[in-house]
Structures are given as structure tokens and as C-alpha cells.
């Protein structure tokens, strides 16, 4: 019988997520794995319910992208008791007993924040002297990527006192809110804005519109850094409106399926598997664009 995998996805809140889902579904088909897919609509309790139903259905392996890091002990213990291995994707979980999951494959949000900051440090080094005022568009308050991307970014920025975050507000990961908040930032004329750091591409794209409508040139008057690396971001870079995007690779389907097979076959796997993620500055955008699958 084909391998059965239960997969609990966070939701379909962004293009990134949709690409992630698509990759997993396609890879499962490719690998001949029967996929039980459950969408949690951004709620942890729904994920727990889904995992319980996977256990009841006696699937061979469970994989999921946790909505948050904590709160998984009980249900994972149930999975372990039922003898079903668990693979985490996309983000890690905090559990008292690390044997509750077999492996974790996915991105490191803190690292993404750091990468974004490092790019900015380099750029700042090229233009010594002037201080750089940064505005930050945060993700949804309390969400893991928002917390971690902020943390990583701030950690690195601290090393250069000339870099100052002058405003930081939540744009809830959406274009509309990103635009609205950026509009508001632009209206305050006490300090000049030099850099925009957005926690995802969607907000950056919204903010670009706001900057243009304020009569400024995005990418030139204001340097824009964002994270995710979705197609829209590359198009913006190609048009010179975005300076850099830090990739957060959603296409981990094939890797996940391979892992699942290994895990079920009881082959040893590493506890932490990172996916390849790059930093794409505007210069390489045109070349890279045709390669983007999402």
C-alpha cells in the first residue's frame, strides 16, 4: 500500500503559504504518497484536531507546519504512543522531550532577519557618514515570523549605531495594511526615512505604492528590504523598486517526501534540516525571475 501522510497546513494566508502547499501536494503525487491534507485556518486548536484525526486514521507519518512554537507536547505524545513519526516543516516547536518529533525541515526566521540586516550593513558601509533612518513594517503581532524576523534584524543592526529604527508598526503581512501604515509613516516629516524593512514581500509591495504616491522613488529615495522572495518581489526588483529580498523557500515538498520515506523506513535522519535559501538583491532579479516557481 502506498505511504499515507497526514499534513496539517497553517492556512492560505499568503502567496508564500500557497506555494508551500502546492509544492507539498505536487511532491506527494510525484512520490506516490497518499496525502491527507488539512487546513487549520491559522488556528493551533484546528491543527491539534487535525493531528488527532490523523492518529485516528492511523496514517504512516504526520507532518505539519506549526502555527506557533509551543503547546504541542500532549498531542505529539499521543502520536508517539500510537507509533506515528512526526516531521515538522517550516518552523520548529518547543517541546520538553525532543524525541516527540523526528526531524524539522524548514527555514530559520531569525536567520532571515539577520540576513536582511547584514545586507543593510554592507550597504551602509559603502556610504559612510550619514546616519540611516529605518522604518519597519512588522508582521502580525505575536506571530512567530514577525517576532523572529524582528529579533534577528535588530540583533545585527545593533552593531552599527548609525542604523536606527525610527518607527515600527504592524502591517499584518498584507498589502493593504502595509500601504496604509507606510502612508502614515511618510506623512511625518520630522525625520527622513532612508530604509524600509518589511517582514514580508506583500507589505513591501503595498508600501512601494505608498512611496510612489507620495512622490518619492522606491528603491532610490528609500531603500527597501523585505523577506520571502515571492514572484511579486522579483518583479518589483526588476522594476528597480525593491532593493533586496531574503528568500524563505517554500518549495520543500520534494525534500519532505524523501524524508517521510526515510523516516518510515526507519533510516536515520538529521534532527534539523535547513533548506537552501538565498539573498536576492535587485541586481540578480532579472536573471532569477524566470526561475521563480511561485
Amino acid at each position, binding site marked *: 500500500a502506498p505511504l499515507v501522510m497526514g499534513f496539517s497546513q497553517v492556512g492560505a494566508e499568503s502567496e508564500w503559504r500557497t506555494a508551500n502547499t502546492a509544492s507539498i501536494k505536487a511532491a506527494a503525487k510525484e512520490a506516490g504518497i497518499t496525502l491527507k491534507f*488539512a487546513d487549520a485556518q491559522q488556528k493551533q486548536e484546528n491543527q491539534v484536531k487535525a493531528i488527532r484525526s490523523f492518529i485516528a486514521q492511523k496514517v504512516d507519518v504526520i507532518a505539519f507546519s506549526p502555527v*506557533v512554537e509551543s*503547546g504541542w507536547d500532549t498531542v505529539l505524545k499521543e502520536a508517539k504512543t500510537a507509533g506515528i513519526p512526526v516531521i515538522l516543516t517550516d518552523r520548529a516547536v518547543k517541546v520538553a522531550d525532543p524525541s516527540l518529533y523526528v526531524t524539522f525541515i524548514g527555514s530559520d526566521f531569525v536567520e532571515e532577519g539577520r540576513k536582511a540586516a547584514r545586507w543593510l550593513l554592507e550597504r551602509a558601509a559603502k556610504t559612510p557618514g550619514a546616519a540611516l533612518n529605518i522604518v519597519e513594517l512588522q508582521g*502580525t503581532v505575536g506571530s512567530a515570523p514577525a517576532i523572529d524576523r524582528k529579533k534577528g534584524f535588530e540583533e545585527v543592526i545593533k552593531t552599527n549605531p548609525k542604523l536606527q529604527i525610527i518607527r515600527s508598526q504592524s502591517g499584518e503581512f498584507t498589502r493593504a495594511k502595509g500601504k496604509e501604515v507606510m502612508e502614515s509613516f511618510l506623512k511625518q516629516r520630522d525625520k527622513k526615512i532612508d530604509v524600509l524593512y518589511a517582514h514580508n514581500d506583500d507589505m513591501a509591495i503595498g508600501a512601494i505604492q505608498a512611496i510612489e504616491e507620495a512622490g518619492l522613488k522606491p528603491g532610490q529615495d528609500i531603500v527597501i528590504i523585505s523577506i520571502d522572495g515571492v514572484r511579486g518581489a522579483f518583479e518589483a526588483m526588476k522594476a528597480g523598486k525593491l532593493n533586496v529580498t531574503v528568500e524563505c523557500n517554500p518549495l520543500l515538498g520534494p525534500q519532505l517526501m524523501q524524508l517521510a520515506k526515510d523516516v518510515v523506513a526507519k533510516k536515520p535522519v538529521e534532527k534539523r534540516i535547513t533548506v537552501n535559501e538565498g539573498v536576492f538583491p535587485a541586481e540578480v532579479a532579472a536573471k532569477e525571475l524566470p526561475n521563480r516557481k511561485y
Partner: protein
Amino acid sequence: MKRLLSAPSFTSWVSVVLMAVLFIAGAANYTGFASTQVVLNLLIDNAFLLVIAVGMSFVILSGGIDLSVGSVLALTTMVAAWLLQVAQWPAEAVIVLVLLGGAAFGALQGGVIHVFKLQPFIVTLAGMFLARGLCFLISVDSVTIDAPLFVALSQTQIPLLGGAFLSPGAVIALVVLGLGLWIAHCTAFGRTIYALGGSEASALMMGLNVGRTKVAVYALSGFCASLAGLLFAFYMLSGYGQHGQGVELDAIAAVVIGGTVLTGGYGYVAGALSGVLVLGLIQTLIAFDGTLSSWWTKIVIGALLFVFCAVQRLLSLKKAAS
């Protein structure tokens, strides 16, 4: 049969029958569906929702609404986690404190509604922002709970026949439901709630204590929300400001599906159970199906909800006609 048809609780019976139909459909289509544990999981996974729905039933029966429950749930998990992990309080003290806190939060809202003669919707909406905001003031990140009592409650399995089990949370929820039924049907307070929902002006003229009842109803709902928060904390072992997003709508939906009229005065607290189970069953069906994309999930939930409500409504209409 005729008596059943004419009983005012007919709508509730319709829900039960429809639920059975949903379950049989699931059992026929998906392997592993027709097991005791799947049924019990409905209770285990929705224990917190059931507790909130019981509180919400009272609020809706009294002609009000409480939108703050989801946020109070989150705030409870957050405060509990903070007190346990950061302030290192004993678990028992934390439990008592958050329960009192939830009741106080609800009572405060009830007080504002009564004293200033404001609409419950808007006051509890502000309460919803407030409670959620307070979570983030404590911490934006999620806080793991490792207090032994909580862990024990989280992982205890109460064995039932045939290897199936129930969680302590589910048992607590059932007890709350029982208490709710008792309050609604056997106490003067419960009957005053119905009276209030039937006609507030009349209740006032009948010399019932409208003010105290209103405050108590919201206090009860706040209490249930914080108890649900504790169940949630047992369930997830974490405190987090994003917990319980949209739970208020689920609870309202459950109560209304269970046959309670949103404008108050008509319905049964027991309906909360059938409402919660219907919502849970729909989710379980979808999880078992496992082929739906995110958007088809939403569409199917909507469609099942529609079929359920429409059939329920048509059957009740037929009854009214006959």
C-alpha cells in the same frame, strides 16, 4: 411522536438527528471514522469551546452578546503562563486567580452595559480588544507552561471502555454543561435570564432584578471564558496572545445552531452541546477527507453549515405548519 413534534425543544431534536446523519455519512465514507475515540475526540478537542458556548448561551438567552470570550480565553492562558513560569506561583493559586479574574472582567463589562445603558455588542467588542491587547502587553511571544499540575492534567487519559479515553478537560466541560443546565432550568437566576431575554422592559416592571442579573450573566460568561482558557492551557500547555482567534464567532454559531434565538429568550443551554458537536463534526469530516485545499475547506464548511441550518429550519417550519 406527536408529543415530540409539538415539544418546544423540537429544533434541538432535529439537530441531534442531523448530527447522527452526518456521523453515519462520515462512517460510511472514511475508514477509522466510526470509532469511539473519534467521537470522544470531538469532546476532547472542543471542550474549551463547549465551556465558552455554555456561558455564551446564557448571554444570548438574556438578549445580549459577548464578543470578548475568545480574547479572555487568550488572556487567561497568557496570565496563567506568566504567573506559573515567570512569577513562579503555585498552580492552584493561579487557577483560582484567573478564574476570578475572568469573572471580574465579565462583571465589569456587564456593569458598564447596565450602568451606562450601552449595547452589549460594542462594550464586549471593546473588551475583546482590551483583553487581547493585554496579552501582548505581557508578552508577544508564546510562553510554554511546564507546571506539573498542568502537564499532568494535559496528559492524563481517563480510560473508557475499549481502549478509548477522555481528557480531564472534556470531563470538566461536561460538568460545566450540567451545571449550566441546572442554572438555566432550576434556579431563579436562570429564569430571570430568560425573562430578560423575553422582554427586558417587562422584566423590569415585574420587579426582577435586571441589573444584578445582567452583571451576573456577563460575569458567568467571563468565568466560562477563563475556565475555557484554563482548559485551553491544559490542552496546549502554552500561553499565547493569538490563542482562540475567532472563538467568539464559533461559540455564537454553536449556540445559534443549537436552537437558541440570537435576540434572546428562546432556546436551551443543552443546545450548546449539539451546536459544538456539529461544528466539530464538520471539521472532523473535512480532516478525514484530507483532499480539500484550503479554499475548498472553507467552501465545504460553509456548505455543510448551510445544509444543516436549512434542513433544521425547514423541518421546524413544517412542524409549525402542521
